[in-house]
């Protein structure tokens, strides 16, 4: 498996024996030599080497006789192509080619699987070897931080968008103002206020100097019309007396009229209505 994978990957020229592979081939876990596997590998190695050398020789010959040979080969190639067309028709070359290609594909898939396994094995081994703490110790964070430009970062942050996404109402609902107020000690605050000092700084004299007391007094006196009050009260007293007298006069008038009318045995009331009404009638 590993062998065929290496073959596909490197080609025949790069086929160099690997120590571990040879060791794996030559020994089994208990230390004894695995003879069949050793023989198979040797045969394969010999075949590969023979192929490589023949190819080299062919290359040398081709290099020397390239052009004339190619000129001569052209008719032969034409003949060969014609014969290939015939053979293809009669000997089922397509079928054989298909089988060959299928075999190629299978070999490639096997190689890919082998390569994946190999990579995993290598990476695991590498990771086992690496001491991450040591690596981190060698990283100079200060230097990295020094190269960071906070202003540039801040410029790239869109605060408006962030703020729009913040639900202030929800935050406010979660704030317990009563609890906050309960924790405020007003008495302590008031005790720290020095009222005497504040009062001492108030200049009452200056305030009084700004108040126009004589002007205010004059205004008040102007508003209160003492004369009118006295006139009102005296005239009210007089009119009350006079009104009482007049009403008494009216009552006596009515009484006298009724008495006289009874003596004179009159019927019906006197016609004492306003004279103007009489004129109208």
């Amino acid at each position, binding site marked *: 498996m590993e062998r065929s994978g290496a073959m596909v990957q490197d080609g025949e020229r790069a086929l160099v024996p690997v120590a571990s592979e040879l060791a794996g081939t030559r020994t089994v876990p208990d230390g004894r030599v695995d003879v069949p596997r050793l023989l198979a590998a040797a045969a394969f190695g010999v075949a590969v080497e023979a192929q490589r050398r023949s190819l080299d020789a062919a290359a040398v010959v081709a290099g020397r006789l390239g052009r004339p040979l190619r000129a001569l080969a052209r008719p032969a190639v034409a003949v060969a192509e014609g014969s290939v067309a015939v053979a293809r028709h009669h000997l089922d070359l397509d079928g054989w080619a298909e089988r060959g290609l299928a075999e190629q594909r299978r070999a490639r898939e096997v190689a890919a699987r082998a390569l994946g396994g190999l990579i995993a094995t290598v990476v695991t081994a590498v990771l086992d070897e690496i001491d991450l703490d040591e690596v981190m110790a060698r990283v100079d964070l200060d230097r990295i931080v020094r190269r960071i430009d906070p202003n540039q970062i801040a410029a790239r942050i869109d605060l408006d968008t962030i703020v729009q996404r913040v639900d202030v109402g929800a935050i406010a609902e979660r704030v317990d103002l009563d609890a906050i107020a309960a924790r405020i000690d007003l008495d302590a605050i008031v005790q720290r206020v020095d009222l005497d000092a504040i009062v001492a700084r108030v200049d009452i004299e200056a305030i009084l100097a700004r108040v126009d007391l004589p002007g205010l007094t004059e205004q008040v006196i102007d508003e209160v019309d003492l004369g009118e009050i006295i006139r009102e009260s005296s005239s009210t007293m007089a*009119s009350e007396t*006079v*009104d009482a*007298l*007049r*009403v008494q*006069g*009216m*009552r*006596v*008038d*009515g*009484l*006298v*009229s009724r008495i*006289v009318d009874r003596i*004179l045995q*009159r019927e019906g009331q*006197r*016609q*004492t*209505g*306003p*004279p*103007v*009404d*009489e*004129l109208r009638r």
Partner: protein
Amino acid sequence: MTRAIRYTEAQALQGHRAGFASRVVADFIDLAVAWLLGLSALVAAGLIGYLLTGPPFQLPVLPNWLDGSALGVVAVLYLTITWAATGRSVGKQIAGLRVVTQSGRRMPLWRSFVRAVLYVLFPVGLLWILASRRNASVQDLILRTAVLYDWAYHPAEDAHPGEEHR
């Protein structure tokens, strides 16, 4: 300045013809006023004589025939002027009365004078108020005048003080 009348019965009778008692009271007050005016005239005459002739100060003594008629003259003058001016003498002012013609107008001067003379010469004419259905004295019947309850203030320029009570 018209002030409110607080008695409803008085308010209802405003503009109506006044009865006997009110008018007699008013006339007695006017008589007293006339007597005071005559006395004042005597005192004034005495003062003038005192200033002109020197002491002793004494009131002038009128002859008997003139004594009574002098008071009458003063009364006639006083009543004529006040009735013609406002329709009310001092007595009528206190009693809340006003003299007007039967059409409710203020009396002209001559009618006031005649009325005053008639009253001074024949005060018994007032008794007819008792008998009259319209509370009219003899003088009222002769001169076609009337005396009304009128507590309201009317300036002298108001020629129709009685019309307010229609």
